[in-house]
């Protein structure tokens, strides 16, 4: 077992919603108590529905935002305002929407070189260009794409550029925020293969954020299931898909449509909507929608238990 490249301890993030002139300020608890470790060459998937805090987690890990509580260690260095510059090159991010994540006024080459211009200003321009062209081939584009603008590329090609830009600084951790959910099916598999190849070749660690369980099942090594800002189940992939200990994971899995018409499975129907992260219920956050909930669930908040397959539930299976 190798040394983890990313260790997160109890990460918590809150936002304040201004209540206007007369209203009261409300606190959105976007992320509460996220702890995990990620080893080089491994993929940790974060799964959940909208508002579950997975994108907030991405923003905290990539140091776009500072968490209000908790800490994380990147490659042996604790992250914080003092180490920000040093760790900038350790973690990079790929966004969901390849149309919004590339600057429309920059050529592909400029986009790839920008991280180098900022972080290694002493590097000669010729060297930068050489690396950018190398990167184009690495992510499956052609060197002559160097001079094109983003609008000349298709969605899949743009996502390749976005992956390339993230890799320019040779990071150790790559945060992938729904990297394939905006892409067509036939393109999605191309990008997933690219990510698998790059991981094998460069020993990258992926924090793979997704809502699509079939993609997660394919690419992940370990999975965190989140609900309303809290991890509710953490397990190695095989264990999780084999048997789910938390009722929410069970419901999520049964709600995912399977591309097999012969499979008429019994679906667990969840009643109700996702509660908003502004007023998270006391007790277990999933209790109002849970079919197993009892009085205890509504008053007492369950914590993650110990072991390799952890669940935060009073009545885990």
């Amino acid at each position, binding site marked *: 077992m190798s040394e983890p490249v990313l260790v997160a301890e109890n990460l918590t993030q809150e936002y304040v919603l201004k209540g206007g002139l007369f209203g009261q300020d409300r606190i959105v608890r976007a992320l509460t108590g996220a702890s995990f470790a990620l080893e080089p060459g491994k993929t940790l998937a974060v799964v959940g529905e909208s508002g579950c805090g997975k994108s907030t987690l991405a923003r905290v890990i990539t140091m776009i935002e500072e968490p209000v509580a908790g800490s994380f260690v990147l490659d042996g260095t604790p992250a914080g305002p003092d180490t920000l510059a040093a760790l900038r090159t350790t973690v990079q991010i790929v966004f969901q929407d390849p149309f919004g994540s590339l600057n429309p006024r920059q050529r592909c080459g400029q986009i790839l070189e920008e991280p180098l211009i900022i972080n290694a200003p002493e590097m000669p321009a010729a060297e930068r260009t050489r690396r950018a062209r190398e990167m184009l081939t690495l992510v499956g584009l052609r060197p002559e794409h160097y001079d094109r603008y983003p609008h000349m590329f298709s969605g899949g090609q743009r996502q390749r550029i976005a992956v390339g830009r993230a890799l320019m600084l040779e990071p150790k951790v790559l945060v992938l925020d729904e990297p394939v959910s905006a892409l067509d*099916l036939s393109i999605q598999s*191309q990008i997933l293969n690219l990510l698998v190849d790059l991981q094998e070749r460069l020993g990258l660690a992926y924090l793979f954020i997704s809502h699509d369980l079939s993609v997660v099942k394919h690419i992940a090594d370990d999975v965190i299931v989140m609900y309303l800002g809290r991890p509710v189940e953490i397990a190695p992939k095989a264990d999780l898909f084999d048997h789910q200990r938390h009722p929410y994971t069970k419901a999520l899995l049964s709600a995912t449509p399977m591309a097999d018409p012969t499979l008429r499975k019994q679906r667990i129907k969840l009643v109700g909507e996702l509660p908003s992260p502004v007023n998270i219920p006391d007790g277990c956050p999933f209790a109002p929608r849970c079919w197993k909930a009892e009085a205890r669930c509504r008053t007492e908040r369950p914590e993650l238990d110990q072991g390799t397959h952890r669940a935060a539930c009073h009545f885990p299976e």
Partner: protein
Amino acid sequence: MSLLEVRNLSVDFATTSGSFRAVDGFDLTLNPGDITAIVGESGSGKSVAFLAMMGLLPWTATITSDAMTFDGHDLRAISPRERRKIVGKDMSMIFQEPMTSLNPCYTVGFQIKEALRIHLGMDRKARHARAVELFEQVGIPAAETRLSAFPHQMSGGMNQRVMIAMAIACKPKMLIADEPTTALDVTIQAQILELLKSLQEETGMALVLITHDMGVVAETAQQVSVQYAGQKCEQQEVTALFSRPHHPYTAALLAALPERATTKHLPTIPGVVPGQFDRPKGCLFSPRCSIATDLCGTTPPPVGGPEIGFARCHFPINVTAEQSA
């Protein structure tokens, strides 16, 4: 007689650099009570075909077809006034983005009652009663109070329910659901799909499901039509399509599903969907096809018979001996 009959529908758009064919020879026959799914990637023209039938395309579009009839009306010759009577009443549509499909300035109750007033001419009391009834039908709790809510006060799933309630308000004969669950979360998606299916069973309307999600298709549809670059490349009954696809594109698409993967490397379809400027001469799928020959690159393939799923291919796959005989 079938409810909807479309033969050889083509849609061209005038753009900066010449015309662009978004839909090419689209055929569809729909009987009352059918659940048909139209599957395709973005740019395959699956939404455009239906927008063309409803007359909702901008003036840059040129629509041609050999036949386009709905419930006895010829949609090609119909006047805009007549068309408005059909669209939204007998033929209605729900869209992908529930948040933007509703007018944020009015309460959802006002919007649903407006449809009832215009198409059915109900009086105030009847409208209100029907609106409450509809909201209950689509599973909106506390229907009475929700009528006076604005779209931004409700979640995406609730708004999509409102959209569905509006769409079925006039008891349509055909409901077109254009990516109805793409913008929704998985657990909500399951609820909405259940709802659409149960409504279809209750009312016996025809349901057209436009989607790119193979999982949704497998769990919902009876008939599946696969679109590629504006053309229909295959149409089959759902179980047959998933077990024995006849067009190489369908086969490749199914193989690319991560849940069907057996190794860490997924089988892929190389390249991208042809755009306006790189449309191949022969079979549109030939540049990306693994079994394409020279013939495929030069000659557009014929449309096959029903026994091979109308596959538009020179070399349909998964064909048994008696089928080819």
